[in-house]
């Protein structure tokens, strides 16, 4: 029950925050803002899909998580950690060469980490965990 509430409340809060952010600056919206908004929306859809799969499994009498899903999550987390290190190195390298403010760069880094994790999770889900 607690999980079911969290499944609805958390994405709803993120969506509301995104919509407030989107509509508060809609007059002087730049391409980068639209891109950021699109990426956050994709992450939100991804989170809802994962949550729905868990909920569906739970509703059908099965476990919300099992050994495979936990292993996929752990593998995706470890892979995305390594890739994120290089992402932050790249951001540090480019921070002197492009005219962006620090908070924008940090935002790109955080969104990048989320995207990297999502991509790793999808790749592992598709490829499987053979001989792990």
């Amino acid at each position, binding site marked *: 029950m607690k999980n079911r509430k969290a499944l609805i409340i958390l994405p709803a809060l993120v969506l509301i925050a995104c919509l407030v952010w989107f509509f508060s600056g809609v007059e002087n919206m730049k391409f980068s803002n639209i891109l950021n908004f699109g990426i956050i929306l994709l992450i939100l859809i991804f989170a809802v899909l994962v949550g729905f799969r868990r909920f569906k499994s739970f509703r059908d009498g*099965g476990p919300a998580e099992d050994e495979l899903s936990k292993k996929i999550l752990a593998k995706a987390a470890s892979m995305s950690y390594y890739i994120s290190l290089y992402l932050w190195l790249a951001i540090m390298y480019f921070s002197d060469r492009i005219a962006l403010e620090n908070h924008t760069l940090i935002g790109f880094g955080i969104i990048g980490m989320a995207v990297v994790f999502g991509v790793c999770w999808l790749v592992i889900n598709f490829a*499987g*965990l053979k001989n792990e």
Partner: protein
Amino acid sequence: MNNRIKEFRARYNLTQDDLAGKVNVRRETIVFLEKNKYNPSLRLAHDIARVFGTTIEEIFIFDS
């Protein structure tokens, strides 16, 4: 490592959902196992073997 889960499942007339329910995993895990995309834990292998009333060696074939 290969396995004969699909063959045993057909023999016992079980669906992937049925087997998943009996060993308390999600259906996707059974799909991954049958496609040889995942090697199960010893516990899961034991549970699957018990459902089919046989040994782990009968179901999971280890390549040397």
